[in-house]
């Protein structure tokens, strides 16, 4: 019977096209809203994770104590073996070295003497290896105001504001003057490859981003790094998983007596993130509930309308001697088919748009040109597992419910009346 009905739906455009379109649009909107909401709610979380906390973060005990001050003298030594170990122990996570540092950025005049200088906060991340995810995490391509992303050692990005203040452009050289891990003077020349605006207060005032190996050379941290950040491969923070990773890591590596033993902290335990996560989950949940409810009502209505549209047909079918129950059952089955087709195509469309919005994002920065806040100027959607099924709630269930309710009419009225009402 399904095959027969499917044939009917496919051939009889008048009874299928509009409902399928409506269900598709509805499911697509639901999926889109779900992803958008997750994206927006998680935006500052994602930004925090990407720039600061990772999903989990490994530091030495001593470094963790005063991590705000970027105490690289307390950095993790033997970092490469630690990262290798982490990679083999937790292969489903991406482990990256990071160094944060303070220093002085110094632009030379033609004689190589100081023309201008200023304090900076630096981020050293893996910019250059072919498989690096870090450029995406730092949203570098989208944040570029001028120039290109670093492509070779010695390239650096500087915040656009800094570039304007010091009147420099891509191609200009500068010297980073800082402190090596053991307290010595650190010097290294860099070339500005591009200027960036991250849309964040902290970064845009005076930040530079350089490759991790450049920083390791410059700061005499050859086999050291301040922090190792771990990210789940799907880019989403999963507290349960993070908790178990932290626990197993703790068993293997923790040494309370050693100040320089590594310690792992999950995102939720860093700087007040816990409340934020709980809050945004609750708020997001409420919003999605309202939305799915609204969509369900609309599609329920669509189901009703779809049934009503076909009273004429039911009248004829009943007149031809078809059993009421059979008419009703076919109506429900059709509802299921239309709901399923609509939900599938709608979910696909919704996911497509969401994916686009996740990758490209929506730039709302035009109205906030000189923004100085730790706020992203590009808002992105986030595709979660729920996005794959949430469209079916209104799409399938509501459609069928609507059809079922409208079909009740078949039982209520007798054949003659139906027939007459529709005046065939």
């Amino acid at each position, binding site marked *: 019977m399904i095959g027969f009905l499917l044939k009917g739906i496919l051939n009889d455009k*008048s009874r299928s096209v*509009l409902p399928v379109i*409506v269900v598709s*649009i*509805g499911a697509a*909107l*639901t999926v*889109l*809203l779900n992803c*958008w*909401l997750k994206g*927006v709610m998680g*935006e*500052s979380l994602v930004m*925090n994770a990407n720039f600061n906390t990772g999903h989990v973060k490994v530091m030495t005990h001593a470094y963790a104590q*005063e991590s*705000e001050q970027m105490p690289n003298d307390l950095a993790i030594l033997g970092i490469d073996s630690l990262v290798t170990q982490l990679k083999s122990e937790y292969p489903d996570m991406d482990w990256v070295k990071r160094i944060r540092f303070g220093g002085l950025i110094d632009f030379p005049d033609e004689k190589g003497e100081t023309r201008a200088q*200023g*304090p900076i906060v630096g981020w050293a991340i893996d910019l250059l290896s072919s498989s690096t995810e870090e450029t995406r995490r730092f949203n570098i391509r989208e944040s570029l105001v001028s120039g290109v992303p670093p492509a070779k050692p010695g390239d650096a990005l500087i915040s656009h504001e800094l570039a304007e203040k010091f009147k420099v452009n891509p191609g200009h050289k500068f010297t980073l003057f800082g402190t090596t891990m053991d307290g010595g003077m650190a010097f290294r020349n860099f070339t500005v490859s591009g200027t960036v605006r991250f849309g964040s*207060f902290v970064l845009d*005032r005076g930040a530079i981003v350089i490759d991790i190996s450049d920083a390791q050379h410059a700061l005499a941290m050859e086999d050291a790094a301040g922090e190792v950040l771990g990210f789940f491969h799907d880019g989403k923070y999963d507290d349960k998983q993070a908790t178990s990773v932290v626990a197993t890591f703790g068993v293997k590596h923790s040494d309370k007596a050693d100040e320089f033993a590594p310690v792992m902290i999950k995102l939720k335990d860093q*700087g*007040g*993130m816990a*409340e*934020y996560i*709980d*809050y*945004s989950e609750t708020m997001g949940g409420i*919003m999605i509930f*309202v*939305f799915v*409810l*609204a*969509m369900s*009502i*609309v599609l*329920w*209505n*669509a189901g*009703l*309308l779809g049934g*009503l*549209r076909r009273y004429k047909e039911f009248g004829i079918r009943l007149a031809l001697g078809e059993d009421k129950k059979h008419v009703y059952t076919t109506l429900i089955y059709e509802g299921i088919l239309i709901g399923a087709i609509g939900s599938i195509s709608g979910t696909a469309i919704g996911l497509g748009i969401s994916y686009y919005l996740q990758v490209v994002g*929506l730039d*709302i920065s035009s*109205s*906030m040109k*000189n*923004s*100085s*806040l*730790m*706020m*992203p*100027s590009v*808002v992105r959607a986030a595709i979660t597992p729920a996005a794959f099924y949430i469209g079916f709630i209104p799409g399938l269930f509501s459609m069928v419910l609507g059809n079922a*309710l409208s079909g009740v009419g078949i039982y209520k009225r007798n054949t003659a009346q139906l027939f007459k009402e529709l*005046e065939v």
Partner: protein
Amino acid sequence: MLSMQLAFRNLIGAGLRTWLNVTVLSFAFVVIVFYNGMLDGWNMQAINDTRDWEIGKGQLWHASYDRYDPFTIQDSHGGISGHIRSMVAAGRVTPILITQASAYPAGRMLNVVIKGIDPDQRILELPTQSLAQTTNELPAIIGKRMASRAHLKKGDQVLIRWRDKNGTFDAREITIVSIFDSNVPTIDNGQFWIPLAKMQQMTGMTNEATLLVSREPLNNEAVEPWIYKDEKYLLKEFGEIMQQKKGSNKIIYGLLLSIALLGIFDSQVLSIFRRQKEIGTYIALGMTRSQVLKVFTVEGSAHSILALGLGALYGIPVLAYLHQRGIPMPKSADDAGIAISESIIPLYSFGMVLSTILLVVISSTIVSYLPARKISRMNPTDALKGKIQ
């Protein structure tokens, strides 16, 4: 008028179908009002708190002061004289002197900023009177964020080291006499507030200030050599953060509204399909096509009127309750550097509600009109026969 009556009668007559559409549209209406109310409330609260705790109604800055560049602090101080002095005496402005320092809680070193403020000032809500009421040699008040970061509590002493105007080191134990709880992080993080006179004496900057906070806007007053920064300038970022929030929320309620409109659209398509004979009859009776089109458009947009009514029915109590109770916010939300209280009192302005109403009515009129355009192309005879597919 007739078309209105007709429209409502037809709608109510459609029963469940109408009410489903109306319910959804009313959701959209209430959610939009709620969201905007929340953001406006937040904005208002943040602005008020910042004004009360930090910026007053404007500030007078020393020429070289830049609030975002800590390296300007060293040279940003100047004498208070002439007119400004009389303004201080009249309580119209209150001076604040700022210097960088190091604090040594438990052998660690923290870079901090010390701010001198008149304990008797009445312009900012900082509990400066506790600086006056103490017999402590060098009392300080700090915010809750600073207290937790430096692990300090009331009564604790902490050594601070600073330099006077000549660069000579000085160091003293400072006593925390009070810890204040403010929503404004920018007067809290990394800061000690001490009595202005002490500060001037400690730094040798007699009768000097870095900036002055004003009680009233000082738009046309000569304040040279100080530079007047009005409220608008000082609050520039609030506009930006709200713009950003509103931007992304527009998408959310835009989607919700489009769902509701989708329902109306679907209903309209069906009614025009089902009621061909009625349309034909209207035309046969002498109504012009555009008049009929109007009837159907009005009927569709009447959804929005019902939705407004329904929305008001449950929305007003809910929103009023939220206004009374406030909307709880997470504590770490102020990481962005903007003031946020533990709960936000949403603010529903007349203009905002009105523009939401217009948005809902106009958008539903448009989606009602779109399918009804078909009517203008209808052949009345075919319509009467019900033969249009």
